[in-house]
């Protein structure tokens, strides 16, 4: 594999837990994956599967004091972020790693003008003059294709539409030219037409700036259109991991197959009965051993076994080897 780009990020057996009324629950359970330089890795799964917690663990933005990383490594450019100092992680977050959240209104301060918020990133990370920071911020708005950026710099977030706000959040995340961007459901709150604009913008900026990206979404369509590699998560576990084309062509795990079969697409015949996955995503507290998807399927064997391991079935294609959920 000499032609393959080196990995910018390697997550290895990451374990993240939350302290709750019902005891310690593992929201992320031995998750491993890698992001090659310049590529996009998608993390897909239903709500509560641990995809956002995984992302927040990487940049150490877990809710405090309940969230804790209990094990594993997050290697970013040779440094282990799990054990980095708070000062170091603050420098990296917003600097070398940019973060984009689902709800742009939550990421923007409603009482400050757009210009001040974008310029602040430059002031914090680059130690440049106010005037230079303002110019750099205007340039950033131009880069994310906001019309008349000089005027928009003086607007407040509520003046802008959802799509424009998400562009501002992207401008904030990309201001310091990060080498890795983590986007958590960046288009879920947007209309399809605006979603297409934002995805197109992100793809163009990614190739212009040679960034790597982690894209978190529940939308398999978005994954198929934007990602090079995909991680499928269920109840805190990675159940399958492969190159995007490989995953959609040869899904191996029962959960991945279930997800792919259950979506209505433009090609499914009208009013036909869709395939379903019975039940709902398991509560993490209830299940500390065995295969979590077996539990959802109501298989009696669910409780009796150890957590399944992983096998590399073909180069780069990993699957959790529960004998019920994956039959070679």
């Amino acid at each position, binding site marked *: 594999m000499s032609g393959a780009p080196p990995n910018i990020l390697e997550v290895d057996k990451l374990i993240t837990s939350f302290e709750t009324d019902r005891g310690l629950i593992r929201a992320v359970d031995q998750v491993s994956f890698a992001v090659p330089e310049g590529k996009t890795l998608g993390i897909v799964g239903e709500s509560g599967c641990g995809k956002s917690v995984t992302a927040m663990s990487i940049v150490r933005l877990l809710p405090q004091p309940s969230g804790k990383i209990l094990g594993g490594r997050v290697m970013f450019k040779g440094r282990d972020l799990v054990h980095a100092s708070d000062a170091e992680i603050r420098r990296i977050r917003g600097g070398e790693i940019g973060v984009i959240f689902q709800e742009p209104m939550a990421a923007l301060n409603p009482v400050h003008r757009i210009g001040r918020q974008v310029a602040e990133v430059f002031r914090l990370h680059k130690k440049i003059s106010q005037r230079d920071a303002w110019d750099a911020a205007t340039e950033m708005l131009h880069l994310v294709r906001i019309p008349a950026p000089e005027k928009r710099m003086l607007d407040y977030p509520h003046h802008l539409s959802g799509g424009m706000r998400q562009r501002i959040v992207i401008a904030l995340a990309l201001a310091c030219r990060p080498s890795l961007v983590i986007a958590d459901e960046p288009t879920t709150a947007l209309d*399809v037409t605006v979603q297409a604009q934002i995805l197109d913008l992100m793809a163009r900026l990614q190739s212009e700036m040679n960034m790597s990206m982690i894209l978190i979404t529940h939308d398999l369509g978005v994954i*198929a259109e934007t990602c090079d590699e995909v991680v499928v998560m269920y109840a805190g576990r990675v159940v399958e991991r492969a190159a995007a084309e490989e995953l959609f062509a040869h899904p191996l795990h029962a959960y991945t197959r279930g997800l792919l079969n259950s979506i209505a697409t433009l090609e499914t015949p*009208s009013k036909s009965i869709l395939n379903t996955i019975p039940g709902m995503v398991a509560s993490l507290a209830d299940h500390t051993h065995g295969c979590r998807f077996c539990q959802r399927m109501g298989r009696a064997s669910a409780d009796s076994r150890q957590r399944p391991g992983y096998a590399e079935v073909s180069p780069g294609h990993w699957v959790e080897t529960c004998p019920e959920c994956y039959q070679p």
Partner: protein
Amino acid sequence: MTAPPLLSVSQLRVHFPLRGGVLRHQTGAVRAVDGVSLDIAAGETLGLVGESGCGKSTLGKAVVRLLKPTSGSIHFGATDITQSSQRALRPLRRDFQMIFQDPAESLDPRMSVRAIIEEPFIIHGLGSRAQRVTWVDALLDRVGLPSSAAERYAFEFSGGQRQRIGIARALALKPKLIVCDEPVSALDVSIQSQILNLLVELQQDFGLSYLFIAHDLSVVKHVSDRVAVMYLGKIVELATAETIYRDPRHAYTKALLAAIPSPDPRSKRPKILLEGDVPSPIDPPAGSAFGHRMNHPLYQESVGLDLALREIAPGHWVAADPCCLTAEDWEMLRTGQRSD
């Protein structure tokens, strides 16, 4: 069209007044629904799609008279319900029901599931206590919930199960029409398909009609017989689901379809990227609203034209808008021909 439609809406307008100044004079209006005509036949699903802010939810609420129309008419069967008082509507409300996007918000947290589903019977004075117990159990069973669910509270259930409770309540009075406003968009992918299957089965069992409002075009295509595409308070295209997806004529429909991400990495469908957002319904453009967004060179020409729907092929209606049609289609509509 031999049988009269179950629901018939004609030139419906719903405008919300904007007030300003000390005396709260009306200074303008939000033209949320601005001249919509449509029919729904018995047993039919009409899908309604469009971006947020296009007026689709307002239209849905107006047809079941949760909102008062500004002008136009709504006929339910042979009855004109456009201006009926709430008292006059009450007996008719048995026939049309609504399912909302967020079942958590539409189910009273202080009522047990039994009380929620039973309430419509009590309001309409139906059945004895014992009968109502049987009816509620039967409804729960029909929507796939155990009868033990009846004594619990709605918040104890997951999103998908709460939507089932909402559906059970809507079904209670054996309605003829259910307006479904984004019924699955708050649900996880694997739960969406469960609810869609349930809605399709119930329609076949009870001969229900649906007005199915959603922004997800794949979902709408899946459940609908015909689809109406709405843009800025107006319907711009209306045809059978198959036709809309196979042969869209309006530029906005084409753009919406092209924007859906396909769950197949090998499919490389052409992308049409729309610039800008839906314009404000407070001060809509005088001519073609979509042409205005696209900065179309023919926009000036469209000002003053009648942009109403015309039948371009049998059963396929499209706004007669020079900015949004191919030159060929526009010529055909302008000269009053039809492609058959």
